[in-house]
C-alpha cells in the first residue's frame, strides 16, 4: 500500500486538509444571509429660504441647499452598496419626484450629477407650506416602499394659518421616514436674486408678509384691532415681524414629525445623518448572497503555512546534527 507511508508524514495531512478547504471554497462560494437593505427618497426643500447661508464648508459660508447637496453626495460613499436612492424636490405645497430609487453602486455617477444639479431655480412656484408639502409627499410615496427623507429648514412663506393644517392622523403609522432639519438656530437674512440669477441684496422687512391672512382668523375678534368679519378678519393693523429672516424652525419640525409618526434629526455632520438613516426601522431584511470564500481560503492558508513552519523536531534535529558533526571533528 502506497498511501499509508505518505500519510505518516504530518505534512501530507496538512496538504490534504488545505486541498479539502479549497474544495469547500469551490463547492460553497456564497451563503445566503440576511442583510439590511435601504431604500430612500430624498425630498429636498428648494424654496428661497434654503439660499440663506448659515453653513460652512472648509471655512467658506455656503447656503443650506449647497450644504445639503454636499452632504448627500458624501453620503453616497458611506451607505451600503445595495442602498437605493431616489430624488425629489419640494416647493409650494408638494414635491416632484425626479426619479425613482436606483442602486447607489450601479448608478453612482448619475446620482452624484443629479444631486449636484439641484437648484432653487427648479421651483415651479414660489411659496412654501411645509405641513401640506410633507402630507402630499407622504401620500404620493405611500405605495412605493421607499423611506421618505424630507430635508427642510421649516421656514414657511407666507406664514401658515394654524387652523388650516393637514390632518396627519390617517397617515400616522403607515408612513416611515425622517425629517432632516437644516439651517442654524440664529435667524439670518435670505438672499434675493435678479432675473440673471445674481444676488441683488437680501429680503427686507417690507418684502414679505408677516402673518397669514388666509381664511378665518384663529384669534378672538374682540382682541383684533380694526376687526371686520367680512373685510378685515385679521384686523386693519399692519403686522411687522421677522419673517424676512430665516432660522431652523426646529420645534415646528419636531411637532410635524411627531404628528406624522416620523423621526427627526438636525443636519450637522455626515455621521449623525448616516446613523439616523441606517436605523433598523428603515431597513428591510433581505436574503442576499454573501461571499464566504474568504473563510475557506484563510483556513487553507493557515494549514499550508503550517507545512513550512520549521517544526520543533527539525530544530532539535538540526542541533543534534551539528553536535554529531562536532563529534566527528573531535575524533
Amino acid at each position, binding site marked *: 500500500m*502506497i498511501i499509508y*507511508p*505518505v500519510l505518516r*508524514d504530518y*505534512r*501530507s495531512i496538512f*496538504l*490534504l486538509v*488545505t*486541498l479539502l478547504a*479549497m*474544495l469547500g*471554497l*469551490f463547492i460553497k*462560494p456564497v451563503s445566503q444571509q440576511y442583510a439590511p437593505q435601504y431604500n430612500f427618497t430624498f425630498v429636498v426643500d428648494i424654496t428661497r429660504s434654503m439660499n440663506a447661508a448659515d453653513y460652512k464648508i472648509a471655512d467658506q459660508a455656503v447656503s443650506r441647499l449647497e450644504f445639503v447637496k454636499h452632504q448627500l453626495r458624501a453620503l453616497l460613499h458611506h451607505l451600503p452598496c445595495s442602498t437605493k436612492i*431616489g430624488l425629489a*424636490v419640494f416647493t409650494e405645497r*408638494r414635491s*416632484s*419626484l*425626479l*426619479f*425613482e*430609487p*436606483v*442602486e447607489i453602486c*450601479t*448608478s453612482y*455617477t*448619475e446620482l452624484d*450629477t*443629479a444631486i449636484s*444639479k*439641484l*437648484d432653487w*431655480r*427648479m*421651483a*415651479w*412656484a414660489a411659496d412654501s407650506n411645509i405641513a401640506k408639502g410633507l402630507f402630499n409627499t407622504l401620500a*404620493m410615496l405611500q405605495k412605493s416602499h421607499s423611506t421618505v427623507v424630507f430635508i427642510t429648514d421649516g421656514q414657511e412663506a407666507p406664514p401658515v394659518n394654524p387652523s388650516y393644517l393637514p390632518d396627519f392622523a390617517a397617515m400616522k403609522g403607515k408612513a416611515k421616514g425622517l425629517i432632516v432639519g437644516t439651517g442654524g438656530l440664529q435667524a439670518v437674512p435670505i438672499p434675493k436674486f435678479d432675473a440673471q440669477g445674481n444676488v441683488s441684496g437680501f429680503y427686507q422687512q417690507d418684502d414679505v408678509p408677516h402673518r397669514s391672512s388666509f381664511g378665518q382668523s384663529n384669534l378672538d375678534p374682540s382682541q383684533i384691532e380694526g376687526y371686520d368679519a367680512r373685510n378685515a378678519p385679521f384686523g386693519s393693523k399692519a403686522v411687522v415681524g421677522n419673517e424676512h429672516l430665516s432660522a431652523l424652525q426646529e420645534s415646528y419640525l419636531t411637532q410635524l414629525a411627531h404628528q406624522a409618526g416620523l423621526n427627526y434629526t438636525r443636519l450637522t455632520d455626515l455621521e449623525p445623518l448616516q446613523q439616523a438613516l441606517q436605523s433598523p426601522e428603515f431597513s428591510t431584511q433581505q436574503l442576499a448572497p454573501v461571499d464566504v*470564500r*474568504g473563510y475557506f*481560503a*484563510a483556513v*487553507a*492558508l493557515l494549514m*499550508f*503555512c503550517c*507545512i*513550512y*513552519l*520549521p517544526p520543533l523536531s*527539525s530544530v532539535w*534535529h538540526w542541533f543534534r*546534527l551539528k553536535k554529531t558533526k562536532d563529534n566527528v571533528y573531535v575524533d
Partner: protein
Amino acid sequence: MNLAVDSPWLLWGLLLNGLPLLNQGMRLHDQPWLTLLPVDRLSQALSLLLKLVAMLVITSLILGLAGLHRREQSRERIGKGAHIVLLLDRSNSMDDSFAGRTPEGREESKSSAARRLLTEFIQHRQTDRIGVAAYSTAPLFVMPLTENKIAVEAAIAATATPALAYTHVAKGLGMALSFFQDQPLTGSRSIVLVSDGAAAIDKDDELKLRAWFQQHQVRLYWLFLRTANSPGIYDVAQDSRDDNAQAMPERYLHQFFSSLKTPYQAYEAESPDALKKAIADINELENQPLHYVERLPRQDLSNACYVLATVCLGLLLAAKFLEVKKC
C-alpha cells in the same frame, strides 16, 4: 491592467512567502556527509521548483483573500446611436387623456402613454446615451446623459407622480440644450420634446435658443400630444386678429422650430398609436455612427487566484507521493 485589491493591508501576508525558503517542507533524511554526494542539477532544479510552487500557492491565496480585481474599465467603440435628451412636459394637462378629460376605465393619460412608449424606446436603444429633463413653470434637471438604462427608466417612471404647474417651454429647452455642454461632438445629438401644449417664447429667449441649437448641433423632435378639439401645430388662424403667438402658441412654436438652422421634425399625435409611430420613426432616424464608450464592469480575479492555488496544491500533493520513503 488596472489591477486593484479591496483590502491592501492583507498584502502584508505576502511575507509568508519567506517560509518555503526557510524550510524544505518535506521529510529530511540524515546523510553521513553531504559532500560525498555528487552535485545533482536536476535535484536542485526540482527543489527550487517545489519552493516556487509553494510560494505561488501562498501568493495566490493572499491575493484572493485581498480581493484582487480588475477595475471598471471603459473602451471606446464605434456603433450606431445618438445622444438623446428627453424633455418631458410636466404640466397638469399631461395627466388628462387624449380626449382632454381625466382618464376613466381603460383610458390612458397622455403622460402614461408617453411613459410606456418612451420606456420601450430606450430599451431598444442599447448604445445611446440618454438624458432626461423635465419642465413645467421651471426646468428640472433629472438625469444626465448616461448609458445606464436602469437610471433612465427610473427617471421616466417618476413621471407617474402627479404633474406640476404650467408650461414654460423656453426654459425647458434651455435646460435640455445645457446637457450638451462639454460633451464630445460625436454621433447625432437630439432633443425629443414631449409636450401637449406650447407657450409663447419671447424674443430674447428665441435668440439664445437659436444660437444654442446651432452651437451644439442639436436636432429637435417635437412629439406634440394633441388633445381633441385643441389647436394643432398646423392650424391656420380663421381670423387674422388671432394670428399671434399668444392666441396660437402651437403654430408659432412650430414656426420657430422650423426656422432653426438644425434639422427639426414635428409629430402631431392624437392617440397612443400615433405616438408609437412617431417614436418608431425617431428610432429609425437616429442611427448615425457614434463613438461611444463601453463600460466594462469590474472583473473579479479572486476566483482565478483560488483556482491557481488549488492547481499548485495538486502539484505539491503529487510531488508528495514521489518522495523517497524510508520506513
